[in-house]
């Protein structure tokens, strides 16, 4: 089993305190529950947890508006202690633009999947980036439509079997996966681009820093910021929960380079 469940459950802290041990982990206070309705082995709760930790640590809870796309992660609408608007599939960057333009001092981020942001809504995110909207777009990329039960998205990798690419994604028939952050590097309005992952504890910690940098970029008004996070989807990949991180490491990470892709020098100051 990956670290997923231990980290989300938040149940390890209480008995340790009683035993006089140092409290080293608890769930983010911005997540209003110990439970969620996503599948075992799903990577999305990991990403959302560290995102919430960042907002809490930045003291921005009362200053933040989230725009949620449509996917498994939409269920977090009920759990996040933040003002939230749910958007249509693919349209969150446009909706976030509307919010940010009328409330320019708020922290506005989108939470979308690869199916939402890259397959259905790539026009919205590209134009938001080109306009240099001072929002943070977050893409949870599991290379599949998880919510529908495992179908091809624009980021499904070559050879990946889905319910709509039964013999594996074939470039001759299904085209090639899109690397969105790399696409946006040349846009003048784009200040910060990064890709993280949550399939190991180290990767989760690194992703938390990427989120922080993106949110700081927005807070300082430097331009558009985007973080794509590779998230395990054992259900959509047709592997066991335990095999999820391995599948991600072997199949996704070689295609989607993890790390910072564009970083404003103002962040160093």
């Amino acid at each position, binding site marked *: 089993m990956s670290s997923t469940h231990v980290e989300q459950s938040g149940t390890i802290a209480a008995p340790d305190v009683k035993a006089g041990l140092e409290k080293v982990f608890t769930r983010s206070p911005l997540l209003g529950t110990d439970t969620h309705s996503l599948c075992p082995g799903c990577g999305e709760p990991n990403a959302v947890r560290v995102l919430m930790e960042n907002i809490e640590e930045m003291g921005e809870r009362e200053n933040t508006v989230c725009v949620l796309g449509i996917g498994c992660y939409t269920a977090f609408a009920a759990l996040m202690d933040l003002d939230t*608007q749910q958007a249509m599939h693919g349209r969150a960057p446009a909706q976030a633009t509307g919010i940010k333009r009328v409330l320019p001092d708020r922290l506005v981020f989108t939470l979308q999947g690869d199916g939402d942001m890259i397959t259905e809504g790539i026009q919205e995110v590209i134009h938001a980036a080109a306009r240099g909207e001072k929002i943070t777009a977050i893409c949870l990329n599991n290379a599949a439509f998880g919510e529908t039960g495992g179908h091809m998205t624009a980021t499904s990798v070559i050879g990946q079997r889905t319910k709509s690419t039964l013999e594996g994604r074939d470039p001759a028939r299904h085209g090639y996966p899109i690397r969105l952050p790399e696409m946006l590097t040349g846009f003048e309005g784009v200040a910060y681009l990064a890709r993280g992952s949550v399939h190991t504890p180290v990767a989760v910690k690194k992703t938390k820093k990427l989120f922080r940098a993106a949110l700081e970029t927005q807070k300082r008004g430097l331009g558009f910021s985007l973080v794509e996070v590779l998230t395990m989807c054992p259900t959509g990949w047709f592997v066991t929960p335990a095999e999820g991180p391995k599948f991600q490491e072997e199949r996704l990470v070689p295609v989607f380079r993890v790390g910072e892709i564009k970083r404003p020098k103002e962040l160093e100051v």
Partner: protein
Amino acid sequence: MSHPDRESIGSGATLGPARAFLEGGHALAEAAIRAGCRFYCGYPMTPSTEVLEYMAKRMPEVGGVCINVEAEIEGINMVWGAAGAGVRAMIASTTNGMSLMQESLAEMVLGRIPAVVVNMGRAQGDYNQCTRSGGHGSHRMIVLAPGSAQEAVETAYRAFHLAEKWRHPVLIYGDFMLSHTSETVTFAPPPDTVEPLPEKTWATTGARGRKPRLLTSLGMRIEGEPAGGGGIGPGEHRTDTTAPMREAVKRHLEIARAETRVETAMLDDAELVVTAFGILGRFAKYAARLAREEGMRVGYVRPYTLVPFPYATFAEIGARGIPVAVFENNAGQMVQDVRLGVEGRAKVDFIGGISMDGSGFGVGPNVDALHILEKIREVYPQRRAA
């Protein structure tokens, strides 16, 4: 602008004279600004382009936002975001652009987003699109059809008022003639739009000193809050997607009771009623007067709210057995609602038709009171038996 509260809207605004000679599109845009609209976005398309042009100039003057959107789909979702943040927000488009917005319009009814959407259509071929939608589902927007530049002004005020009063998106349906015809207008909120509005306790502005708010069209509830009727509890999806649909349909009935508006004239002794909506209502009214000069007792009805449709007015006409002649610049769309209204108790004739110039705009040879008069002469012999 940094504060969404209504009280702050308009502060510092450099509003022009209260009386002006303006095209309908410009008049509507100015009235929207005076009604407190501070977010506008649009994509150019004749004949809604003038609204975008006007807003691009005026919005910066009043500290508002005007965005040139890359597509109508993006535009309507920007309006969703801004209106959801508590700011009066509007988009205008035309016919095809409206078709692109349909998914979001449908869900904005369910999500209770009080935005104002303007369709400056090319003629009147969007009646079904405007009144049967937006998009999917059983729910509808409130749809207002102004018949003059002055009424477009009043409609802009009223649209924002109704949108917030009912927390329901409002569509204004005009056309080429309304948008491009210049008339003298005065700017003042109609008396029915000055009653106090409910506080925006739903606006997502950042949860300062309060519990979080969730704006959703899917019936989701925040943990700890009761789910919508028949909702699913914690541990599941915490949603009941049918709850917003049921609530919207219930709201429709209340809106229909309170907000149905219709212009009528010369009905008392009428033996035939001619009806039209929008600016063509003026042509139909004039034709009815000309018919009376010829001794034909013709009455006149102009639905102003297309949703809620004035079914009761037509039910009464049906109960009196008075035939109805429906004039509209399309292949026959509102005529269906008129037939529903008279409940089979009166004859309904369609005397309209598609009449545009070659570019597809709304001024063809049939947009003429004398043409309507000729049609009245044709159907009048079938008038109610004395």
